[in-house]
């Protein structure tokens, strides 16, 4: 039994090539961080949102702007602060004296790629407003539902240091993110190249995405998302994903395991990973490759593991080493 593909293999092949082109273009601006780029593309293809965690200055904004440019999409950025209000995110109605009527002023969420910088600095009310937009893909202002233009993707960032005065995202809201991506320092060569790229022929340290050529347009991205959603998934691969998720609920180091959304996320992201790998079908390898990113924000470690300094990644790696891969 399998979830059959309704798209021809040529179509899929072409889609796969487009995705590779997309990745190459982004790599021109973002030096190194190949796994981060891959995971962001996977989230875009799977029509999901990502939470990026890393210290400041590792090129998160650059990544989003570069990505927006590859498909001529719009991009906006919100710096989350403790005094940020929900209407600053979604928009609001304003009374226009000339026309003597209320005019709706759309907020920064009306865009293709939204960078929510340091999302944990805003209070729960504002976070919830954004997370609702992510889920519903629409904003209601003055009782009027306003649809967001697809593709819409949120890239929220978090800073692992400076936890003072932050509002950590509750588990239920973390679940809305398809992947949680950890961004780390680049290695020596990559950093050397990065410093060279930023400082050559440029004034100041402004982000430069001029080298990036648009590969597709927003319509294409929607098509790619459709193709991704229709890739073949064998029932054993789905079982494998579900087994992994179910195992998180019984694993000794995990006090709260992932919910069914975890399994759904693994399959969605697995399909996108398969397309990125140039396949028109999903293998257990695809699921395994995104399992840690797809589950690390959906589990809560047991207190003793946290005291021992274990991270969700190590626990999940051990868990993946214990779940049997499907075979005949």
């Amino acid at each position, binding site marked *: 039994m399998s979830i059959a593909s309704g798209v021809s293999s040529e179509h899929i092949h072409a889609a796969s090539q487009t995705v590779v082109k997309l990745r190459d273009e982004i790599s021109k601006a973002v030096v190194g961080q190949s796994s981060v780029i891959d995971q962001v593309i996977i989230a875009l293809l799977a029509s999901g949102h990502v939470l990026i965690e890393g210290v400041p200055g590792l090129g998160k904004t650059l990544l989003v702007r570069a990505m927006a440019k590859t498909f001529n999409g719009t991009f906006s950025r919100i710096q989350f602060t403790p005094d940020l209000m929900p209407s600053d995110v979604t928009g609001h109605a304003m009374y226009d004296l000339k026309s003597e009527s209320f005019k709706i002023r759309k907020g920064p969420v009306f865009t293709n790629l939204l960078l929510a910088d340091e999302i944990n600095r805003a209070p729960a009310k504002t976070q919830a407003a954004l997370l609702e937009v992510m889920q519903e893909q629409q904003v209601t202002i003055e009782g009027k539902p306003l649809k967001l233009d697809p593709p819409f993707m949120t890239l929220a960032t978090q800073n692992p240091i400076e936890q003072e005065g932050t509002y950590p995202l509750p588990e239920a809201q973390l679940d809305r993110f398809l992947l949680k991506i950890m961004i780390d320092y680049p290695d020596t060569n990559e950093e050397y190249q990065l410093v060279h790229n930023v400082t050559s022929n440029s004034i100041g340290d402004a982000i430069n995405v001029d080298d990036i050529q648009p590969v597709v347009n927003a319509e294409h991205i929607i098509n790619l998302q459709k193709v991704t959603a229709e890739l073949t998934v064998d029932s054993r691969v789905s079982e494998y994903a579900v087994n992994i998720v179910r195992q998180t609920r019984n694993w000794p180091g995990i006090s709260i395991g992932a919910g069914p959304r975890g399994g759904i996320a693994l399959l969605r992201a697995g399909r996108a990973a398969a397309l990125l790998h140039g396949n028109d079908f999903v*293998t*257990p*390898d695809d699921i*395994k490759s995104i399992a840690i990113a797809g589950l690390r924000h959906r589990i809560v470690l047991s207190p003793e593991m946290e005291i021992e300094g274990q991270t969700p990644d190590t626990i999940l790696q051990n868990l*993946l080493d214990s779940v*049997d891969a499907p*075979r*005949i």
Partner: protein
Amino acid sequence: MQIDKMSARVRPRKPMEAIDLGFMMVQQWWKKIALSWLILTLPIFIIINVILIDHEVWAAILFWWLKPLYDRVPLHIISRALFGNVESLKNILKAIPGLIFPHMIKMLTILRLDPTRSFNLPVWQLEKLTGGARAQRSNVLKKLSGGSAFGLTFLCILMELIFFFSILGLVYMFAPEYYTDAVSTALWPGEANNVWWAGMLINFFIYITYFIVEPFYVAGGFALYINRRTQLEGWDIEIAFRQLAQRIRKPKSYSSVAAVLLACTIGFIFSPIEKVNAEPEGLSNAEAKQAIKEIMEKDEFGKEKTVVRWRSKDKDKKKEEKKDEKEEKKADPKVKKSDKESSTDFGWLSLGLGSIGEVILWVAAFALIVLAIIFYLRWSPAGIQKSQKINKKIPKSLFGLEITPESLPDDVGQAAMDLWNKNDPLVALSLLYRGVLTTLVHRDGINLRGSATEGDCIRIVINHGSKLNADSVAYFRQLTTTWQLAAYAHRLPDTGVMKDLSQRWVQHFGAQS
């Protein structure tokens, strides 16, 4: 020395009890002990610390080194007070010079580190013995109380440490940060920013601990000494006889019996009694013998009872051997303590603790060796290879598949083609793939886990650097891709591809070793 004037009850005590008696003595006369100790030591402490103001560590060591001198004052007070002579503070102070100087050099040099100092001190100070006589006397006394004396020293060292750290703890809890910082730096000699008074303050803390612990140490040792003498010289018996003799003198009618008893028991006393005032009178030899006979025939002395029971022969043998040993010991006049008594000694305790410690050490050493071996097996390159060889034995089935060589047909390629022809393509491909995994696990000793996906298997094979040549790896890649397409994309290969894969199987993975 008038033992009948002793202010404590005279009886043989267990070492613990004796030490406790010593502690009680300190509590009884603590005012005099503390005052005289302070008057003697405080000036010494101040002088040493002022002279060695820049070398506070040396000051502490010097003050500690002079400890045997200070011990003599508490001993002087206690030893007199115990025999009913509680001296006034004035007299004590007058006696101090005479107490400190005798044998000072010897005490501060070769005998300074004596672990039973407080026990030996009375021999010096009270018996005033020197040279060989002192050594002999000390040895006799130490025979059965040496362990307890050593235990007391150890206990007092611990108590000093506890008090010292408690005082430090108090300072850290209550003193402002400026002072605690100064104390912290002074605790580490050689720190550059030492405050001049901090080292002296720490020395003063040490002084306080000595002030608290030292009198108890001296009194404990003295009590052990008194107890040992009570055992050796039968002080309790002597006192009992003296009281008896006093009673005999008054009513004459009982004198005959008391005198007989006295005569009988004198023989049992181990060392000569200093003076026995009671003298037998009014009985001839024959009468006395008759009286003894009568008394011995009474129920209290002369009753005999025969008991019959079974005993193991070996036990008897051992008992006899023990008996012999005992008799030998009895023949030695210096050893006069029963086994039962010695079992309550500190020596026994330290022996027991020692043997437990030894066992723990051996177990720890053994565990360390085992851990080292495990660590080596796990992490050294040779060990990793070895553990992979060990792993070779483990897997019989992986991923729910039988992967023993026996579970495979003799000719895997042919069997796969047969299955293909029987219209069972997925099982045919599965057989080829399973055959490769079996060979990798059993022939090449590659450690494949159940959680390894197809991609993982390829990576493991490449990283393993096994006997597989590039062609075999390429074949494995092709087979994996074909298998993945069939299993997960439901796209079967052409018959030609299948034929090719089946034929090449033997070439790459056919040789089972």
